[in-house]
């Protein structure tokens, strides 16, 4: 069975700093997608970034980038120049190409401090 692990339940960083959120996953398959979602206090789930497993190049969306290490089954999210609006729960998620289920980690609560 596929699993997603986020080992940091909670983190705090100062505004403008860079922060990295960790995610590891477990699968024996090669074809899958990985995602990071942001859930602010409104509880709306927002797709932040997506990575296809067959792509070696790390995905980037503005201040958000990932470090995808397929052999290590690691998919960390880096937030550069963090802003107060980045305060949220962040969830790592995984989908197999052959499957339809979206598997989520338990989340990391990130606080950006002024």
């Amino acid at each position, binding site marked *: 069975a596929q699993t997603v692990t986020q080992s940091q339940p909670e983190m705090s960083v100062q505004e403008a700093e860079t922060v990295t959120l960790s995610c590891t996953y477990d699968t024996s398959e090669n074809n899958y997608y990985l995602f990071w979602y942001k859930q602010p206090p409104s*509880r*709306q789930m927002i797709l932040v970034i997506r990575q296809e497993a067959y792509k070696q190049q790390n995905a980037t969306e503005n201040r958000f980038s990932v470090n995808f290490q397929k052999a290590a089954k690691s998919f960390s999210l880096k937030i550069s120049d963090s802003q107060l609006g980045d305060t949220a729960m962040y969830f790592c998620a995984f989908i197999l190409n052959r499957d339809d289920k979206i598997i989520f980690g338990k989340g990391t609560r990130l606080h950006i401090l002024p």
Partner: protein
Amino acid sequence: SQTIHQWPATLVQPVGSPLSLECTVEGTSNPNLYWYRQAAGRGLQLLFYSVGIGQISSEVPQNLSASRPQDRQFILSSKKLLLSDSGFYLCAWKKLDPTGPFFGPGTRLTVL
């Protein structure tokens, strides 16, 4: 562009009452549809998913059920709510390529 709607936004129901939550997607066809539940401060639990009209897969045995009467409509139901059904219910959709998954705004359910 695609949008996903959920209603109601909030709901307070007594124990033992029925439930019907609705999710609709606009701007796409034949999406995969999902129902998740999130307890306060917790992760997301997959309840049901559907790959087509009338096709429902259940992940967790419970007193909830789901139906997909139309391509872009997904309904979560219960005949008798339990206290443990309280939570935040999220609907999501994705395509096979995959586009998404994208989530709706959610429904906050309180069972008293």
